[in-house]
Every structure is written in C-alpha cells, then in structure tokens.
C-alpha cells in the first residue's frame, strides 16, 4: 500500500505544493534530489531538503521490515515493559492509606488528576508531593526535582517550608545506617526549596507555551521526576467563548503531558475544580473541564467531604480497583487519620481533631 504525501508530518502549505505538482505518494519522492524537487514543486531548497528527510525517515522505517516500528517509536514486549516498570518508583504522599489505594503512591510515567471542591486540600496535596519527590532513594523516595506550575497563585512559601521541615524531621527519625545519615546531610529545607522550579502562568496561552517548552527543559534537567500543574482548570475556565476549541486544546495538552511523562520518566499531577451538572432535574457535582477531559489523566483522584471528614476516592485507575480512604491536613502536611508518628507535642492536637470528628459523626 502506498503511503500518501498528506500523511507525512510536514506543514500543510508544503504538502499542498507537493500535491499540486503531482506527487501523490511518498514513493514518488524517494528517488529525487533536493534541487529537482524544489524546482518541480516550487519549494525552497530548505523545504525540499526537509521533505526528503521526512520521507526517507518514514519510508526507511517501513522498508526495513518494521525494525521494531517506524520512526522513533519502538515496540516492547509486555515482559520487557514489566521489567521496566519494576524499576519505576512511585512518589509517596506520606498518607499510607492513600499510597496503598494508589499502589505505592503517585506513579512515575503516568498523569494523575486531583479533583475536589474548594478547600478540600488539593493544593496541600500538591505541595506535599513537591516535597516528597525529593526524599532520598535510601529512604524509599525518588530523589528527584520538581517543576511546579502555579496558575492560581496558591503557592505559599511558608507552607512549603513547614511541610519540608516536617518531612526532614520525619526522615531524620528513621535514620538507621550510614548511607541514610549521609543522605540526610543533603536533605534539608534549603536543598528542598532549591530543587523546586516554580513557574507562574497567568492564562492558558502561558500554560500551553510552558508545556510546549518543557521537553527541552527536562532534557537539560534529567533529575526532574515530578511536574505539578495547580490548577489546569483555572486558566481554561475564564473567558472561553469557543468550547470546542477549549476541548481541542485540552486534548492536545493531555497528549503532550502523557508523552512527556512516558518519554522523560516523570510523574504528572494536575488539579481540577468541580462544577455542577444538571441531569434530569437533579444536580450532581462533577469534575470540571468536560467529559472529554476525563479521558486525559491516567488516574483520577476525587477529594471530597463526607460530613466533616475528608475523603479521597480513586475513581479511575487502570490497574487498581477504586477505593476510598480518609485523610487529614495537619500543620505537617497531608497525613493519614490517626497517625501515630506524630511527635509528642502534636499529639493532643491530633486527638482533638479526631475527637471532634467522631463527635460530629455520632450527631450526624
């Protein structure tokens, strides 16, 4: 089967000129020299060269009997993929129940979405992840840097310092051997803050541009293991007249993010807002940005209130059953409910919170 010129990844104007000159199939182009092509199709020398390179690359991949797939993509067997996955770690959230529901934490190489109503803790979870990704490998962490894209202006430095200090304290209590002791010297609040790359985007154009430029940044900084976008919904819900354009842009963004996650081995965490959907006279709270956005993230986490308790539900995951767990936000960050590793000075406060919650439960 001959491959038509219009299926190549060239610019539309170049393709138009090629088709008008009578070149319907890429096979027609293979034997031409750049000078001949530029004369016949009235292209510039540079364009003709690019065309021939693209055609040879695509055609070459096919003629080599596959060679493991054309162009840049190569195939793996499921067994090879399994071995690769066993080397990939997850980013813990310091809430062991949530980590268990997610199968170890936020997976590296996948996109995860955090949706929830205002105030339920989405930004807190993002800040916690930004600190957790830097936990050294000898403590079971990933030891990577983080790119934090803030679109709402909700990044509070003081809160990050608190969470980082708590994480450092937590790890220093766990030190058992020399390797961990050495690692603790480089795991301080200052280094945590210096490993965070903060970007402030004010509208959707800046967000799309930033995501477009990220692959180059990630190639220069191979230690980045997490990309946080807080939030994806905010810039896309303002002043968008053409909803179909918004859907297209979001779909394109989703593909770029998953391509970066797989290609550079990073975890992507995005937050989303909630909106009300009216169906048949009843209203329901659903994640914003429409149904087609629901396909974009690999894993979806819904943070919601059940009375006065905060619950996290995993409601889309390709390899784990859905589950709901309870969590709390303390001054140290995102934690399990009733965590016993709290230092003594904090214990009374945790108990008060838990007892207030249980009081409310019995009354509800």
């Amino acid at each position, binding site marked *: 089967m001959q491959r038509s010129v219009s299926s190549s990844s060239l610019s539309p104007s170049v393709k138009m000129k090629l088709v008008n000159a009578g070149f319907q199939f890429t096979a027609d182009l293979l034997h031409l020299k750049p000078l001949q092509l530029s004369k016949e199709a009235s292209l510039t020398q540079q364009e003709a060269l690019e065309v021939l390179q693209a055609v040879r690359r695509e055609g070459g991949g096919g003629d080599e009997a596959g060679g493991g797939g054309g162009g840049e993509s190569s195939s793996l067997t*499921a067994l090879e993929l*399994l071995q690769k996955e066993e080397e990939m770690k997850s980013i813990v959230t310091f809430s062991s129940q949530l980590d268990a529901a997610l199968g170890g934490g936020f997976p590296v190489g996948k996109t995860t979405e955090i949706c929830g109503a205002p105030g339920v803790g989405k930004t807190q979870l993002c800040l916690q992840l930004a600190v957790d990704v830097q936990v050294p490998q000898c403590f079971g962490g990933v030891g990577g840097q983080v790119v934090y894209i803030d679109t709402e202006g909700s990044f509070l430095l003081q809160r990050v310092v608190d969470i980082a200090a708590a994480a450092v304290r937590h790890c220093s209590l766990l030190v058992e051997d020399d390797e961990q002791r050495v690692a603790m010297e480089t795991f301080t609040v200052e280094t945590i803050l210096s490993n965070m790359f903060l970007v402030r985007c004010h509208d959707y154009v800046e967000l799309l541009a930033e995501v477009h430029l990220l692959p180059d940044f990630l190639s220069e900084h191979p230690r980045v293991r997490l990309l946080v976008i807080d939030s994806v919904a905010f810039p896309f819900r303002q002043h968008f007249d*053409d909803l179909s354009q918004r859907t297209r842009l979001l779909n394109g963004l989703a593909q770029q993010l998953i391509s970066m996650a797989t290609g550079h081995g990073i975890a992507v965490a995005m937050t989303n807002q909630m909106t009300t959907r009216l169906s048949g006279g009843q209203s329901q709270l659903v994640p914003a940005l429409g*149904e087609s956005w629901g396909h974009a993230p690999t894993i979806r986490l819904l943070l919601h209130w059940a009375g006065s308790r905060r619950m996290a539900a995993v*409601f*889309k995951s*390709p*390899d784990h059953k859905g589950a709901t767990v309870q969590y709390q936000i303390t001054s140290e960050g995102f934690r399990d409910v009733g965590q016993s590793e709290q230092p003594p000075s904090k214990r009374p406060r945790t108990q008060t919170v838990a007892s207030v919650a249980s009081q409310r439960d019995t009354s509800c």
Partner: protein
Amino acid sequence: MVVLREGMCPGLDEDLVRDLRAADIKTVEDLVSSDIEELAQRCSVSYKALFAIRRVLLAQNTAFPVSGADLYEELLSSTAILSTGNPSLDKLLDPGLYTGEITELSGGPGSGKSQVCFGVAVHISYQLKQSVIFIDTTGGLTASRLLQMLQAETSNAEEQMEALQRIHIFRLFNIFSLLDCLYSLRSGGLQQASVGGGSVKAVIVDSVSAVIAPLLGGKQNEGMSLMIQVAGVLKTVAKDFNVAALVTNHVTRSGSGEVQPGLGVSWSHIPRTRILLERVERAAPVSHSSMRSATLIKSSRQPCHIKEEFDLQWWSCSKEASSGKRKLDETDSG
C-alpha cells in the same frame, strides 16, 4: 495521479520519460488517456513501443474483479472469530471479534474500555496462544495489570512470561507516530512480530480518539484527512493479514443530552461493529462497582441496542477453581 518514472515497466527509460514530459505527459493517467498515434509522432517514438507500455501500465494499475463465490471461499478459509474472554461480550459480538474487521468500543471515562482491551489481549495471548499488537496512546497500559490478569488464568510463572512475550506494545502519543507505526506494520512489521510466538491475530489501538480529537474542528483542515488515512491503513492491515482490529473511542453528548461515540459521523462508518460501554448507575456519585453495561450500537449481524451487563473483574477472577460459572461475589487479588 501516479507520476511516470523510469523503470516502472520495461521500455520506459529516462529518455522516453523526458520526451513525454516535454510533450506534457507527466502521469500514468495522462499517458493512458492520450492518443497513442499522435503521441508517437510528437515524441518520435515507435507506436508499438508506446502501445506495449500503455498495456503494461494499465495492467499494473487496474483493479481486477473477483467472483462472489471465490470471495466467499476465501472468507470461509481465512476469517477467524476471536473470543474476548468474557461470555457476555461474546454474546453481543456474535460470538467474538472477527478478523478482517474493525470493532470499536466507546465509553466515557472510567467505563472500562482499556480494561476490556487488556482482557482481550491477555485472552488471545494465553488461551489462543497467538500474538497481539497493542498500540497505547493514553499511557494507561501497565504490564503489571496484564500480569495480574494472567495470574488469574494460570499460576505457572513460565506460561505467564511466555504469554507476556506474545504481547507487543507500542507507546505513541500523536497522529503522525500512529501513522508511521501502522504503515510500518503494513510493510513487514507484522511479520516480524509473529516470529517466535504465534502469528499476530489482533491489533488493538487504545485509544484512537486521543490522537485524532485534537485535530478535528476549528480552522484545521487536516484532521479529517488524517483520520480517514488511519482508518484506511488499519482496514488494509486487518484485511491483508487476517487480524482483528479493536479500537477505543471517547464519547460526547449530542444536542439532546444523549451519550454518543466521538469523532463524528465520518468515523461512524469505519468500524463494522460498535459497542458503547457505560457504568451501571448506582446511588452514590462515587461508587466503586465493577459492573458495566455494554450496548451494541452498530452491527451487521445482530439487531442493535441489545444490552448486556458484565463484570470488569471477570478477567481477574481465578478460572482454575471455577467450574465454568461466573462468581461475581468472589473477592480477588485485583
């Protein structure tokens, strides 16, 4: 419009091509539809030579009719029906995925399309001992999930590894990579994947809408053309190599609020069979039930709109212990 090149057929050499170009004959169509006598005089070439060239070109570029009986014989001997591994789905598909055809699964987020694709891949690889090509465009495929499903089929680690080796995975995230991959499969990649294991019996693309949807609509004019090209090469691969093509699609809401498969009316003609998956609605907004309902919305073999409910856990339930009955309440390791 196929451009005339030297070497296309015996007798068509560089000088002749140049003379024909000078006489404004650039493509095969031009040559075949022109007056040979007049052309022979203008280019000072022998009439016989041109006539012979014209005959060869016509033979090379024409389609030949096949009798219905021959076609039927060929179909009977080459088409296979692949079970999906789940009896309810098989009932809808009467009774499985047909090779040589495209079957589409559409559904909203979390409706189970990827899970069904994984289950089908595992079933074909383990039970039927044939190879599968899995093209993942969403990043939702994890080999550990495939292993989980295999562990429900057999506890023999060697068989599990063998089955995993028969599943070939491509991870691509844009339309041009998808086209490159499909064209390379067409021109030999499929045979390469068959080496070692069984022959390739299924090509699964999860999901085809993720790479096409960003290109449709607005001021872009390439999206439709690329979508139809994907359809064309996928159908050719399915027909020529006798594989079953399974694709997944997202859903959109129509004007009246009804859920319908995405990618528009043009795409709706491409798959032969279409199934819509939905969550079975229970009271809680976030319910973790694994029951799904499948509705047949396009089929050339069965009446449409028949519905079946099935459990996504089916592929994870241990089959070694069961006596052929579905145990829905069985808690499993998944």
